[in-house]
């Protein structure tokens, strides 16, 4: 197998697999912290048991997220040697800072939280889960600053045959990276919110632990609606940012071939990359693409033909991924409003509860599709406009990558099945009885 293609597939497999576990980590940590804080404030045992229940599911998910993250950091060196050499001066420090600021914090305090029940003061224990949540979100910020730099490199100068850091402030204030952060993290919150809603719905339908799951449901319904509605607005701004900074990606997202003023927007199309056109277009609305991308119905939108074929991203994959993400985004907005309206008596709407159970996987699909748009749409660049992916790959033998790629798929495949089975198993089992959760009296000192 071709080393470049195999390395790309391997990185894609490792990154996508890792991101099956990241969103729930980012969101469920906060939800667990909220439930535990509500217990501290109200003394309501339901919240204590809820915190333990959701926290345990968080932990099973977190385990796989942690271990699959290491391979990503190391793969820049193993498979993308020339990338690492060329941009390490800017990019490497962001990863190192992420580890120093976030990884130590989250891995230490998640252990303090889990093993601290009955051993440390509940207030410190609650602080531990908050610190875990904050740390995992700090980690998201730094990794997205790194990814944002690959999408829109800033603050560097070409010197000594490589990209060297010129302004750290410019890298930290990269607007593209911040919009990515403000997009990815709330998307993770939505996924986590729907996870809690879906699992709660499963128990509510079976009239199991109704009191506890109603309380879980209510918090998650408010949380999910806030972020679902926010993300529809942010998604639009984010798209406009892509239009300005990554015109080839925008053109691929919209399967837009011809440069034109007052460009029309197509709801659905089948791109034909061979003949540089769409073989099918359904519902074309005049001037809307210009309006959406540049907030001006007469604005010029560059078409894919503006660039030579080898500088265009894969159009169909980018286009379909984008359509899937956006359609699901609107569905989540609608569904979260329904859940919000029923937040006080969800058990009275069995149909909504059933939908919420079947909805659990959809935010996962939306998140994966979103990353497809971001990463496939950036091609053929590994760093947009600065370095091509084909120039970044390590000088490996096809045997090495030909063995490691299937190894990744097999090992990850097995672990993924086990992890989701275990999450489902514990989710269905429901919360532990209150007497099994030991709590150290708050009056005792550390």
């Amino acid at each position, binding site marked *: 197998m071709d080393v470049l293609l195999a390395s790309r597939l391997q990185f894609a497999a490792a990154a996508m697999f890792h991101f099956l576990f990241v969103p729930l980590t980012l969101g469920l940590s906060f939800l667990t912290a909220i439930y535990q804080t509500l217990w501290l404030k109200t003394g309501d045992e339901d919240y204590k048991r809820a915190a333990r229940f959701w926290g345990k599911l968080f932990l099973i998910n977190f*385990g796989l997220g942690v271990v699959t993250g*290491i*391979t990503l950091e*190391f793969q820049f060196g193993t498979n993308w040697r020339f990338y*690492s050499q060329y941009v390490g*001066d800017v990019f490497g420090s962001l990863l190192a800072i992420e580890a120093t600021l976030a*990884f130590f914090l989250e891995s230490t305090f998640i252990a303090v939280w889990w093993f601290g029940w*009955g051993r440390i003061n509940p207030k410190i224990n609650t602080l531990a889960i908050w610190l875990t949540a904050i740390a995992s979100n700090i980690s998201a910020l730094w990794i997205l600053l790194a990814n944002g730099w690959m999408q829109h490199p800033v603050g560097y100068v070409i010197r000594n045959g490589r990209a060297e850091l010129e302004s750290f402030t410019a890298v930290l204030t990269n607007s593209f990276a911040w919009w990515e952060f403000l997009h990815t993290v709330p998307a993770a919150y939505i996924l986590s919110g729907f996870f809690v809603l879906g699992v709660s719905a499963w128990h509510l339908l079976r009239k199991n632990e109704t009191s506890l799951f109603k309380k879980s449901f209510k918090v998650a319904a408010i949380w999910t609606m806030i972020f679902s509605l926010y993300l529809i607005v942010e998604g639009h701004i984010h798209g406009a940012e892509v239009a300005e900074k990554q015109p080839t990606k925008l053109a691929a997202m919209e399967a837009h071939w011809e440069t034109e003023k007052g460009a029309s927007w197509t709801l659905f199309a089948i791109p034909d990359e061979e003949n540089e056109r769409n073989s099918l277009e359904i519902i074309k609305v005049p001037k809307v693409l210009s309006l959406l991308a540049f907030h001006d119905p007469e604005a010029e939108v560059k078409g894919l033909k503006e660039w030579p074929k080898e500088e265009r991203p894969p159009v169909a994959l980018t286009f379909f991924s984008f359509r899937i993400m956006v359609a699901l985004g609107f569905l989540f907005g609608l569904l979260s409003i329904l859940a919000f309206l029923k937040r006080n008596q969800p058990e009275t709407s069995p149909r909504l509860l059933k939908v919420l159970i079947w909805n659990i996987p959809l935010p996962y699909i939306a998140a994966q599709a979103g990353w497809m748009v971001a990463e496939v749409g950036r091609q053929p660049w590994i760093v947009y406009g600065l370095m091509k992916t084909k120039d970044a790959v390590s000088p490996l033998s096809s045997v090495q990558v030909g063995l490691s790629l299937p190894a990744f798929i097999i090992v990850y495949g097995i672990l993924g099945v086990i992890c989701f089975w275990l999450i489902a198993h514990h989710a269905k089992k429901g919360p532990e009885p209150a007497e099994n959760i030991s709590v150290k009296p708050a009056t005792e000192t550390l």
Partner: protein
Amino acid sequence: MEMNIFQIIWFVLWGVLWAVYFALDGFDLGAGSLLYFLGKDEKERRVIYQAVGPFWDGNEVWLITAGGATFAAFPTAYAVMFSALYTPLLLLLFSLIIRGVAVEYRNKHESPSWRAFWDFLFFLGSLLPALLLGVAFANIFKGVPINEKGLLQTNLLGLLNPFGLLGGLLFVFCFATHGALWVAFKASSPLSERAASLAKKTWVITLLLVIIFWAASFVTTNLWENYKKAPILAVFPLLAAICYLTVPVFLNKESYFKAWAASALTIVFFTAWGVAGLFPNILPSSIDPAYSLTIFNSSSSPLTLKIMTTVAVIFVPIVLAYTFWAYKTFSYKITEKDIAY
């Protein structure tokens, strides 16, 4: 490229990160590799899992940070080293993945075959990293055959040379001793005594291995050259030896924590011995010293190194403080209650 003080600072920090990683994850990996030898029944095995449970993840972050720091401070060395050591590095990562998952998942489902499955993976995922890290570092100490383009002129089997294998064995037994001491400290009788008595045996084997390793290093490596130039560096191997010899003293007094701490310091000073000998190389070439990756020809720009230094100066003490607190919080003897279902 210009030489600067930050390259030296980051070389030292690079060594410190590896030293702390070995000293901390060393006991997790060691305890895991002894699972079948120490844990005679289900209860004892649960104690071993409990002994590493709160720590393995935080300990592994030192490895991630060592990798990240190599990338940030010496990107060329990171790029060449990681692509040249492709297969052993991926084997290491896969082993660490299954180790971590084993610790987290083993006690989350009550079924004997589930537990047996994860026990085996925990054992394997603990033993292999020790072996691979030992082989990798022995080869780095010796120098690897990289050419002027940074391409490795050998394969995996070439890395499994006698000195590399010796390094692998040394790490396995050193970590096993370290892990047994930790279990002796965390467990109660009879597991505690069994771990202590096993530690005494592996201590002797490790001692023999390190003597052979040091003797062989005079012939196979250039590490001692720096010691001729700067004899003061000899404090590192000297301190390593002194700390190592105090381990059995504490063991005989049943002061298991102190024995473990002495073992941790031994690992730190032993790593310091190797890293000081490497200076200024990060990856020496055994073909021609001119092809070696040094801190001078592979480092980041002074600006990046300065920023990284600032971050390290502020945050590493904070990390150390809460890590220390967490160790103190979880330094209790594991009781029946802790391993209840």
